[in-house]
């Protein structure tokens, strides 16, 4: 972690997400809660100051599963990349904070929403940063496990492997649920690690709710000459007991009662940063 950066806690981020989703009566709770620790770890692995200043040699963080916008914006806010005032506009008329990640928000590299786009852009960034000689910059791309069904993801993985773009690290939110049902019931890709290994990639598998473990895996991948994938085993809806493992929470919105129950379930955290 870059010295001087805030210690962002998952509880604080989840509280922010709940507030955003409840205030806006917005969906995508499950897929936002699953990636909280992943996003914290991604920003903890790079020089956030360069992202804030939009430096040419900044690391690129690309959230390809754009439907976790609430989590992305919440983490960005806690890292001081976007303002709390901006967060309050999430999903409201005239705001730039849509329900999918938007480059209309300063600090976001690329708008996503349709799946299977982010890794190709990340591959291009990896190639471009290498050509520019920015060897310290990383490209961290977050995809969902359901998104892996898009063929374009595998086009990009072949390209990344062939060109040894070791500055690119793919992080998979392996929450086991895609849009409407369990991922393995749609397209069973288990064992997932073997799929990536078959493409010649380095693979690490980790608890997707362990920030330190994810940070360590990203660091390992960056030191490897072979491009790598970090499979983060997560729980969709993590931290909200009635939403965990439930496909419907991709779509459902929080009632007032549910919101209070969800907040209560997160517990107290001194470092929580309310919006």
């Amino acid at each position, binding site marked *: 972690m870059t010295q001087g950066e805030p210690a962002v806690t998952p509880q604080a981020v989840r509280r922010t997400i709940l507030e955003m989703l409840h205030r806006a009566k917005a969906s995508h709770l499950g897929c936002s809660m699953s990636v909280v620790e992943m996003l914290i770890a991604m920003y903890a692995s790079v020089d956030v100051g360069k992202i804030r200043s939009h430096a040419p040699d900044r690391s690129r963080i690309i959230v390809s599963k754009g439907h976790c916008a609430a989590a992305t914006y919440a983490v960005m806010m806690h890292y001081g990349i976007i303002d709390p005032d901006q967060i309050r506009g999430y999903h409201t008329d005239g705001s730039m904070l849509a329900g999918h990640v938007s480059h209309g928000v300063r600090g976001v590299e690329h708008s996503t929403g*349709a799946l299977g786009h982010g890794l*190709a852009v990340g*591959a291009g*960034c990896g190639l*471009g940063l290498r*050509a520019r000689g920015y060897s310290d910059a990383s490209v961290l791309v977050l995809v969902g496990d359901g998104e892996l069904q898009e*063929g*374009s993801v595998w086009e990009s993985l072949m*390209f990344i492997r*062939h060109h040894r773009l070791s500055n690119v690290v793919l992080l998979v939110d392996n929450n086991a649920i895609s849009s409407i049902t369990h991922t393995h019931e749609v397209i069973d890709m288990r064992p997932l690690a073997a799929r990536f290994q078959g493409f010649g990639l380095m693979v690490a598998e980790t608890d997707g709710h362990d920030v330190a473990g994810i940070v360590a895996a990203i660091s390992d991948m960056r030191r490897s000459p072979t491009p790598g994938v970090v499979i983060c085993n997560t729980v969709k809806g993590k931290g909200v007991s009635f939403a965990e493992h439930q496909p419907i929470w991709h779509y459902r919105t929080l009632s007032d009662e549910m919101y209070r129950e969800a907040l209560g379930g997160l517990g107290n955290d001194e470092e929580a940063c309310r919006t």
Partner: protein
Amino acid sequence: MQRDPSVFLVIADMGINLIERFAEAFPDRFVNVGIAEQNMIGACVGLANCGYKPVAYTISNFAVHRCFEQIRNDVAIHKTPIVILGIGTGYDNASLGPTHHILDDWGCVRSFPGLEIHSPTSCAYASPLLDDLLDRGASAYVRIPKSESRYSESSEPMVYLPGQDQRILVCTYGGLAPVAVEAQRLAPAISALVFNRLRPLSGDAIASVLSRHQRVVVVEDHFAETGLYSSLCQVAAARRMPVAIESRAPTDYTLTVGTSPAFFLRSFRGDASSLAEDLR
């Protein structure tokens, strides 16, 4: 690429006997992504994110149809500076069948705000075009016909070739420019309006030419619904012009084999002889 060190050429394994010189001269700014067009466009967008000016190259049907969503989301929405160079237009790949006929390429993407579309009819237009697009940081699709056309040395987006009188105007673009010129040679009364740039169009300038003719015929090797016929109808309708515009264009894909573009042009009387015969 020699002039501008930020230009990056990205190809999808096409361009034999063409791209080698670039690959050899600029190995650090050239990459062949393989048969993976979606990744080609996405990677170009990533390169643009890092300050490069990407040029994506493959055959037109793969460049557009395979990458429709990448062009919409990653190029048009982001206003990404990129030149998508597609080789082949209309029936250039005549005998290869309908998957390789390019009758609906620019029509697919003409609704994307900000995307320029060029269909050069001459080297005089095409040669400076790339530099201009790259210098301006434009998002552009450039479709290159395989036929070599030397009908005009004009570098203007639109070229008017007046006939002996002003009764009949044939409008066309790209690879069909020679057809219009030949039709005019066979029937000198025909005037021709040849487009190098399909989007944006100069509506007032077009309207001025249309208004001087009694009969307007749009000939194109592209479906009319999303082609130049549609564009010119919009120009005329927006100005409430009392002009009837006719279309000569394919109306469907075909499984019938033809070994030259002329074979297909004859099927909708869009070849030079048919035009001269019908419009003299």
